[in-house]
């Protein structure tokens, strides 16, 4: 194992983490402000990817597709909030889990209804094609670097939004005291719709970005959704900072586990079994990490102070 390979794997871990952050940020924001668990967040990710693939196919431009994914996911989010979600804020988590589970079924089958069962084609824009040289002599896909950059921008943008703007002030107020914000004269229903649409747009953005290097297909959101939940639970539900650090932790742990555990197993068993056993443990690794963290810190690494 060379330094260059280790560096490349670290970058891969960070890139996976950034992608998870885009998902987790919306989830944790929605939970922080509205106290809602949204299992259907993965469906919004799927909506973003399908919108991007479809529009990119019509127009020939990934970038127009990307904009479309933001609009489509935000619109889908806003509609779902208006029709369904807002009836769930004063329900317990059980009802929220069930209702959003039902939404997953509807989104998945509905998407198949509209788009058919075959995966869609979505390619990386020409601008971001290819690989660039890294120090140490190895190459790294430009697009993955772009994902890292986009994730960093979104993280910064969210920070600015929440700490510097009027909307952000209302979000913070909503997080710390749901009754108070109503008393401040803020239209809380509109605020919730906006926050939900914002979270949805982030998920849609992630879906479009990732769709270009993965498979745009029905059900694509579910594995990511579970990882995103692991992220926000590790980070402390409601904390954007926790989501960012949790995402990076999960991304790097998962990548490094897949990379290193089979090698570690080589010390004990023959190669074919080392791959299998190492792979098996690697696939459980982040859940083990999550269980350990919650066993020690039952409310995650950065529990929001108010809750």
């Amino acid at each position, binding site marked *: *194992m*060379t330094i*260059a*390979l280790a560096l*490349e*794997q670290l970058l*891969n*871990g960070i*890139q*996976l983490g950034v992608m998870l952050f885009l998902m987790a940020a919306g989830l944790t924001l929605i939970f922080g402000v509205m106290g809602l668990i949204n299992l259907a967040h993965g469906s919004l990710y799927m909506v973003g990817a399908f919108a991007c693939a479809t529009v990119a196919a019509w127009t020939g431009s990934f970038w127009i597709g990307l904009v479309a994914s933001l609009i489509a996911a935000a619109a889908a989010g806003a509609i779902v909030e208006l029709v369904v979600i807002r009836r769930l804020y004063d329900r317990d988590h059980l009802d929220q889990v069930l209702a959003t589970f039902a939404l997953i079924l509807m989104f*998945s*089958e509905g998407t*198949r209804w509209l788009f058919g*069962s*075959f*995966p*869609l*084609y979505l*390619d*990386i824009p020409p601008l971001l*094609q*290819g*690989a660039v040289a890294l120090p140490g002599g*190895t*190459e*790294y*896909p*430009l*697009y*993955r670097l772009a994902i890292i950059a986009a994730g960093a921008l979104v993280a910064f943008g969210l920070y600015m939004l929440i700490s510097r703007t009027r909307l952000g002030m209302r979000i913070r107020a909503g997080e710390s005291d749901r009754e108070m914000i109503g008393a401040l004269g803020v239209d809380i229903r509109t605020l919730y719709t906006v926050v939900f649409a914002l979270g949805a747009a982030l998920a849609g953005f992630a879906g479009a970005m*990732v769709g*270009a*290097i*993965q*498979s*745009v*297909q*029905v*059900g*694509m959101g579910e*594995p*990511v959704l579970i990882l995103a939940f692991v992220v926000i639970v590790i980070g402390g539900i409601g904390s954007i900072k926790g989501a960012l650090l949790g995402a990076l932790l999960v991304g790097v742990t998962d*990548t490094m586990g*897949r*990379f290193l555990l*089979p090698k570690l197993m080589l010390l004990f068993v023959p*190669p*074919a079994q080392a*791959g*299998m056993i*190492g*792979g*098996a443990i*690697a*696939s459980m690794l982040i859940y083990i990490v999550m269980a350990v963290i919650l066993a020690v810190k039952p409310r995650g690494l950065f529990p929001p102070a108010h809750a």
Partner: protein
Amino acid sequence: MKKMLAAATLALTLSASGLAFAAPLKIGMITTLSGGGAGLGIDTRDGFMLAIKNAGNKDITVVTEDDAQKPELAVQIADKMIQSDKVDILTGIVWSNLLMAVAPSATAQGKFYVSTNAAPAQLAGAACNKLYFNAAYQNDNLHEAMGQYANKGYKKMFILAPNYPAGKDSLTGFKRYYKGDLAAEVYTQVGQTDYAAEIAQMRASGADGIFVFLPGGMGIAFMKQFAQSGVKIPVMGPGFSFSQDVLPAIGDAALGAKASGQWAPDFDNAASKKFVADFQKEYNRLPSIYALQAYDAAQLITAAASKASVKDAAAFGAELKKADIKSPRGNFKFNTNQHPIQDIYLTEVVKNNGVLTNKTVEKIFSDHGDAYAKDCKL
């Protein structure tokens, strides 16, 4: 959970040939029509129904239901088809794990099972059954062919598959024929969508060839990511990694990939040309290998049905085993374990009039059977 597709319950008019042996035959098709793997099941159903339609035997009816890729649902549907619909033959399952849930108990209840795709090792070997036929291949075949192909010019292979039985069988099959060195043997998580870590290992491994078995969305994700990585090592895999159902989604990233297959749409024989033309006319798309396998399965059944009654299991089984059909694959006969003996070819992904498809390059195996037939006591 019954998806009884009324539209798919076909009762077809007798064709002019008038050769049909007049005995009613009811076929139960269980396949994946919803969920992530629905593309494969839809091709299976369409290929199968095309052959049924062509046969024009009005005594044959087909009931089709969706298993949603869930084993327990497949079992439930099989129970219903056997107990309530009183089918004679079951078919259509795409996935090995679903097949293992359904086929042994179906044959134990005296029903035929003709597999259109899944072909786990057990059913080809010790657990083979006189009522179980496989019209596709044995799971290891296409991997074995790539192992054989890789012997020509590849000294150090990097091989990769998902960490589940079919993945392990795949790499075992590859290694059964490949004589060179292995740079690494890597197992990834089932359903994994990001392969950056594995691609980085490939880059660093010093391998001169890569063999991947990643069906469905996994393969799409891998190929797109691999194309962006700047790694220039040739990629090869079994046919279904680059089959017609995934090629449009992978796009140009698949160009040049080598694969093994018992058939490709460009086969130059009359049966194949007719199959491709009929399929395109009926469904307006190119058939995939799943469609072909199901098409042949239906041909086998209709051919046997024209000679014997399914109520006479011994006679019907004997007719099935004769495999008296014109397969688009060319050579096709059954081994002692009722799995195919057939030729296996090398194909390459090319662009033909703007459509990605597989071009046949050369023959790898002639009359290739499988490694498990010797364990089968039929």
